[in-house]
């Protein structure tokens, strides 16, 4: 079960940050009305508001570079917690920002997962 969690975690992380960096608006498909995001301490509820928050972050472009991905099964019903650390490159900025993020993924239809919980923090030096 741990191996499957690792596989799902990696696949999800690849997909999530690829979308974030290339087509941020399409991230909304990964959240549902009950999803929660805490972004640098700010709490946001529901796919619409989460999508709005992410679309309105103060940069047009960005690139996530992932350093570590750790995943574990979170429940007997197939949930998975994924813990990510990495760097965020913003255009025009000389230094990358370092961040940590955790996702709690819940299985949806046909082998898909949606994000029930999402917590993001920058790691200041």
């Amino acid at each position, binding site marked *: 079960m741990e191996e499957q969690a690792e596989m799902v975690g990696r696949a999800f992380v690849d997909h999530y940050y690829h979308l974030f960096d290339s087509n941020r608006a399409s991230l909304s498909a990964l959240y549902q009305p009950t999803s*929660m995001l805490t972004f640098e301490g700010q709490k946001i509820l529901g796919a619409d508001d989460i999508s709005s928050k992410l679309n309105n972050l103060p940069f047009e472009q960005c690139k996530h570079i992932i350093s*570590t991905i750790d995943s*574990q099964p*979170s429940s007997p019903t197939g949930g998975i917690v994924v813990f990510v*650390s990495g760097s965020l490159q913003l255009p025009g900025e000389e230094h990358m920002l370092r961040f*940590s993020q955790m996702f*709690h993924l819940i299985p949806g239809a046909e082998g898909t997962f949606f994000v029930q919980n999402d917590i993001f923090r920058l790691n200041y030096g």
Partner: protein
Amino acid sequence: MAMDPDALAKAFVQHYYTTFDTSREQLAALYQEGSMLTFEGQQVLGSQNIVHKLTTLPFQQCQHSITTVDCQPSGPAGGWLVFVSGNLQLSGEAHALKFSQMFHLIPTQQGSFYVLNDIFRLNYA
């Protein structure tokens, strides 16, 4: 009985790291047989193995100081996700290590919580 999630998270975090810093073996009470720890990428399963891992880390004394605590409910079973960042000072080291950690807390029948999922990562500069 609804408890303020932020108060719950702060209380847990304080208890966890105080226990870690003063009597590490007593962390056993916070884990169960099905608990999982991923410590710097190493997977450890079950309370006994987890406590063994934590009590044989290569330092005698340490002090955690917590910078951020974020908390969200994890689902209908009453669990909580707690996301922590902070500093870890080891005795004799000039500089504190920065770390991030997430806990998934599950309610027990006695009205307290145990750690089902625990993921720890140092944040390298």
